[in-house]
């Protein structure tokens, strides 16, 4: 056989397969697009069962709404929907178990720790659903893609994220002539002043999600970065890290108590609600807890935009929430249709979560937004999407970053320094752990 013949035969096989692939994908894509446009589920999902695994939301009313919402969608489309709720910390273990068994739920939720890159080979490509939603609602906020994108395809659907703004006691600030905490320096001055008067501040320095989130906001606002924009290597060891650590230690020494070493994710809520804290940096669950348990303190609790570290530099690290579909799911069509319906109703989810759930879609930020747009204290949250970032900033949420987050390397480095270890030794340990973890993944 001549070279030309070989080439012709090869081309012919590839083009036939390629044609089938493209035609199949096109047909499926257009079917989904038509389905999404028509708001009608295809006949083949009728009579099927859809199983969803997700966390127990911090706002129980959201779970009640979600279950009802899923059931109504199921009733309308002839799909039996079962929603299981578990604590978010148990989700990675459950995900590993379901993957190993090749059975379990169809849709699985990830919160804070987003494992898309670990599992993407076994997840359904949701690019069509995300593109349809993006087209309809003015596109996604820039940080959304970094959570679920692997080689240009979306293997998860970001539905909402949880913001962590500054919550401060305006009565205490006013009574002590303290300025609005627009910079971390002003927040530090406030903490120093108020600690002496029995109102210190606190940011968790324990092994909990808050410690991972809040200190990163401060670090990134000081110009620090965690990884290269493409996520390939850590960039933690920097001049900015040194400046940040010096500042963090001063903030701890002057304005906090050792209680922060023992905190969990709810401790700062209680700290604010008890009337002790002059400010905390937390999700608005702290605001809601105070509203429900201590109305006088709630009355004088206000929210501030993420403080600047360097002039003009504000980065707010949020807790992302993403839904994925297993490849082993026998009901992928129904799963996609349900997720498309869920994202169409993300604003209703925001209402039901009392403003806790922030959407990823740009058009959703048209002011006034539900709940937060009509509350004079919360309306500042509408200005956050431009400064929102996630773990690994400015890079994506890679697997080494997930290990770094799950083993609390970043807050531990700060804890070491705040507990008295020298600046350089703390950095040596922290950046050493970053390099070690990255090296393991490079080898693999």
């Amino acid at each position, binding site marked *: 056989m001549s070279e030309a013949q070989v080439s012709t035969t090869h081309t012919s096989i590839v083009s036939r397969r390629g044609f089938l692939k493209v035609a199949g994908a096109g047909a499926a894509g257009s079917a989904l697009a038509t389905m999404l446009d028509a708001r009608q589920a295809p006949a083949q999902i009728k009579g099927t069962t859809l199983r969803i695994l997700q966390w127990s939301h911090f706002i129980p009313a959201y779970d009640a709404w979600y279950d009802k919402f899923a059931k109504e969608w199921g009733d309308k489309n002839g799909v039996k929907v079962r929603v299981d709720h578990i604590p978010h910390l148990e989700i990675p273990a459950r995900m590993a178990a379901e993957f190993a068994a090749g059975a379990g739920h169809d849709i699985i939720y990830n919160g804070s720790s987003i494992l898309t890159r670990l599992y993407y080979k076994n997840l359904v490509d949701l690019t069509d659903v995300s593109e349809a939603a993006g087209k309809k609602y003015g596109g996604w906020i820039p940080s959304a893609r970094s959570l679920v994108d692997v080689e240009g395809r979306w293997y998860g659907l970001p539905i909402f994220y949880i913001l962590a703004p500054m919550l401060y006691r305006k009565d205490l600030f006013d009574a002590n002539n303290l300025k609005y905490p627009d910079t971390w320096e002003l927040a530090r001055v406030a903490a120093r002043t108020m600690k002496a008067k029995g109102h210190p501040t606190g940011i968790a320095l*324990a092994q909990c999600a808050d410690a991972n989130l809040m200190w990163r906001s401060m670090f990134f606002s000081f110009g620090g970065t965690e990884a290269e924009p493409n996520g390939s290597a850590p960039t933690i060891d920097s001049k900015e890290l040194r400046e940040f650590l010096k500042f963090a230690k001063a903030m701890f020494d002057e304005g906090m108590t050792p209680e922060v*070493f023992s905190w969990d994710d709810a401790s700062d809520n209680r700290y604010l609600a008890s009337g002790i804290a002059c400010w905390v940096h937390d999700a608005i669950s702290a605001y809601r807890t105070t509203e429900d348990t201590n109305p006088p303190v709630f009355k004088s609790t206000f929210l501030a935009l993420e403080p600047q570290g360097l002039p003009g530099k504000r980065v707010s690290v949020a807790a992302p929430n993403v839904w994925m579909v297993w490849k082993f799911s026998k009901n992928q069509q129904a799963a996609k249709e349900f997720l498309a319906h869920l994202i169409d109703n993300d604003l209703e989810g925001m209402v039901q979560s009392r403003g806790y759930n922030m959407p990823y879609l740009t058009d959703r930020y048209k002011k006034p937004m539900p709940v937060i747009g009509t509350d004079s204290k919360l309306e500042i949250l509408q200005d956050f999407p431009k400064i929102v970032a996630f773990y690994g900033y400015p890079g994506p949420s890679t697997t080494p970053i997930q290990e770094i987050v799950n*083993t609390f390397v970043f807050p531990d480095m700060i*804890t070491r320094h705040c507990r008295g270890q020298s600046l350089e030794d703390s950095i040596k340990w922290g950046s050493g752990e970053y390099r070690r973890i990255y090296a393991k993944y490079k080898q693999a």
Partner: protein
Amino acid sequence: MTVTSQHGGPDATSARAAAVSVGSPGRVAPWLRSQTSRRLAFGYLLLAPAVLYVILLVGAPFLFSLYLAMSDASVGDPAASFIGLDNFRAAFESDVFYIALRNSIGFTLIAALFKGFLGTTLAFILLQPFWGKKFIRGLVVIPFTLPISISVLGWKWMYDSQFSVINWFLSKMGLIGTYGSADWPVWLGQPHLALIACIMVNVWRNFPFSAIVLLAGFTSVPTEVLDAARVDGTNFFQRFRHVVVPMISPILLIGFLFDTVFTLSDLGVVYLLTQGGPANATKILPVLAYQVGIQAGALGRGAAIALFLFPLLLPLMILLLRNLKRREY
């Protein structure tokens, strides 16, 4: 198959083998029919379920974790390749691993001491006749039977940095300062206190188990023997040391073995109380293995960390079981 020689017939070796094989049934068959062989076969038959159980539920998972520990397996990628001892080397490169190893050993030893002491004391108390004894016996096992998440949640509240009932009580007694003062303990925030707090919960949860095991042993000691020792003029401690302990030592050893295994592999208490913080001060091997292997998804490295429990437990188990066997004969 019989090997043929160059001359066409079977060679000498094959012929000898054939002769032996023809002759054997005559010699073996009677032995197979003997009572000894039947008893042996019956014994193995009875033993088979236990062996099968150990192979399926202990051997297979152990071998699988050994395989994982020597591979680059991740939770999302089953196609793992063999990487030898790299995962073990990776563990040795991290100082968090050494902290976890040290904490695991310290945690187990200290907890075992307290559980032994409290368990023995409780067992002796429960041996005494008193009103409502059965009810009290039922109550003492509650910590052991409560779901770990519920009981640890209770302890988490008791250790809370702000609302700790322990601290408020100690403060009212004048033993510590008031909230906000320097001598207000932060149970889960100070490295040594945090480890002690975790050990306390483990002891609280498990010493009733030790007490029940010891109680079973104490009640099996014949009263005549104790009476004889009493007549010989021994005091309580002498009777305990020279009569009771030697008689119940098999039970004691098994109880100790179980407790050590449970404590060394206990993930729940530390994970739910501190997740290993502050700054890894309470990190133990099971928590580190879980965080690296499951939460971060590096299954191979997680398995390697978890397997370090094995060399810790193996010598102890061999020693205890040999000791037990010696006592049986």
